[in-house]
């Protein structure tokens, strides 16, 4: 997972103000939820219908225009050899490639297969496992091609998507927060579920952007926006342990929606702190 910089992003010179950039939306292994977030922006998008050419978006339209495309939005993770080849082709056809959602940016919930017995899973789940061709891993898009921008979350945040499109259409700056979910949680004056209820929450180590949605419904953050700019995973683990969570449960909490992103950071931090 890349770290999104809060520094405003300068868009490529190729997208000049006033032109209608062509937009393509691609799906890989995913639930379609992030594409639905885009469709959910229908009212706002109507206002700028003449200024963006939707060239490829099978979820929304049957019209398909060949590339190259100014911008490709990519949803989903790479789980098959066919998809691994397809993303290379999409990258070649796209001036700007934006990954949308936890699957595309971190491998998604399907990355729970990584490091496990995938053949065993296939034989249990499918009546005819011989028809199934799949890779042993689910990997983020950035493991395969260069990614210009990542929109995180499961699903992505509608507001962040609109800000991205606005910046893209108008060559404006885009500023996405890299601070913790707690910042948004306190700003909306939600009571802290961890401090006040003892509910395990990944908010302090997770990047803002969702508006602290889950805590506002009295649930702990499950980390779908991935690690914030300086996540202290070992310190949070200690606290989760004090709240009564067993190590295996902490692992599960950390590794569900962003698979290994938190775990890898944690290991790095433990190594750094170990006396040499």
């Amino acid at each position, binding site marked *: 997972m890349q770290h999104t910089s809060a*520094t405003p992003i300068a868009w490529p010179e190729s997208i000049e103000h006033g032109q209608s950039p062509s937009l393509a939306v691609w799906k890989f292994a995913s639930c379609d939820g992030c594409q639905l977030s885009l469709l959910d922006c229908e009212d706002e998008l109507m206002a700028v219908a003449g200024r963006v050419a939707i060239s490829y978006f099978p979820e929304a339209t049957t019209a398909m225009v060949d590339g190259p495309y100014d911008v490709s939005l990519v949803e989903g993770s790479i789980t098959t050899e066919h998809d691994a080849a397809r993303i290379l082709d999409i990258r070649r056809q796209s001036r700007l490639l934006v990954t949308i959602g936890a699957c595309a940016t971190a491998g998604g919930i399907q990355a729970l297969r990584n490091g496990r017995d995938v053949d065993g899973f296939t034989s249990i789940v499918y009546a005819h496992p011989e028809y199934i061709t799949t890779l042993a891993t689910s990997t983020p898009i950035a493991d395969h091609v260069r990614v210009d921008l990542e929109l995180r979350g499961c699903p992505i945040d509608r507001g962040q998507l609109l800000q991205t499109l606005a910046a893209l259409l108008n060559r404006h700056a885009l*500023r996405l927060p890299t601070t*913790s979910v707690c910042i948004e949680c306190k700003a909306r004056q*939600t009571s*802290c579920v961890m401090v006040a209820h003892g509910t395990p929450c990944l908010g*302090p180590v997770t990047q803002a952007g969702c508006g602290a949605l889950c805590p506002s419904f009295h649930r702990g953050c499950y980390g779908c926006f991935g690690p914030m700019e300086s996540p202290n995973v070992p*310190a949070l683990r200690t606290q989760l342990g004090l709240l009564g969570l067993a190590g295996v449960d902490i692992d599960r909490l950390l590794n569900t929606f962003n698979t290994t992103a938190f775990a890898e950071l944690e290991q790095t931090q433990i190594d750094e702190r170990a006396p040499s």
Partner: protein
Amino acid sequence: MRRWLEVESGVVSGEPSIGQPGGQPIDWWVMRAGDLHRFISLLKSEFDEVIGPVAVDGVIRLRPIESADDLPTGFTEQQETGSYRLLETGTSLRFSYGLGPDSLKSIVHPPRSPVWTMRRHDGTLIVDQALHGTTTRAVIGARACDLRALDILERTQTGGQHTDPAFAVHRQGLFLVAIDCSHPAPTCFCDTGGDGPVADHGYDIAITELDHPNGIVYLVRVGTDHGRSLIESLHLAPAPRTFLEHRDHQHRSISREFIRELPKDAAKVVRLADHPHWNDVAERCLTCGNCTAVCPTCFCTDMDDIVGLDGETATRTRVWDTCFSMEYSHLGPGPHRTSPAARYRQWLSHKLGTWHDQFGESGCVGCGRCITWCPVGIDLTAEVESLGRPVEANA
């Protein structure tokens, strides 16, 4: 019950009251539960909004209230480092709780505040400044530390050459009903870090909830003419001296409850920039920013500029910022304070030390919110103590 009726009429025999009805101005009045309802109704008619303590989502928070029924009657709470639990007491006490996460900051210096809308039309820029609502607000439940914090915050936002217009308008519309603290949390240290638990200035009206053997009463005093005119319109009885003696006794017993303290020389942390303990804190600190959000004096803000999809309108909103953010210290090449140790050091050194240089006082009032609401329970009083030890002892 007869005894209370006598009190209300102000003619309890053998108990001289303070001030004489119809003669000298009254300094202390007595309010009972029914009067409290009348009082809040009066505030409702006087102000656009009445904000008070409410038990909601397991926390006592400052929220708009409709009547005295919304107050957290029978609730208290238990606080520790990184922990807050709402508890039921079974009593009829309404204000017998330690501070929740909300301070007056949320009201006068809200998390989001509009600044301007800018429109671009044919290459021309047109700026519309945001106007800040003139909503008047009465806030019930401010504690002495909250009033002190408001003073400090006010100095940062209006005390210099420039005045934040939003703060000024919100502050001007504020009417403060202080409640003397009867229940300091174990995380509090206002006796050493601030002014102590009893409100002595900065309020329009101040109330002591008296847990008297004969029943709960509210002792009322005023700090402004506006406060006096409101209280006088309720025609309350003057308070008998025994109640005031009971109040003194109640306050004395509270002062013994503080278990944390901030050393008098806490400002010295500024001179300990190279102390190895900063790295020790950094191993525990999540850099999540909860402490700065709940701190009643942390005032830092950022500007959030959002451009519409049409590309022709841009709205600027002032939002709370935190020195725990990397972007906060952005300089040409990138963030200046990258290490968590440097960010925690900035926060603590500013709060306890350089605040004196910048604003002539400490930025800490001893409310302990940063201790309770830190998800991993970092306690600044303990950190200051560790920083005070000789370096060898820390190794």
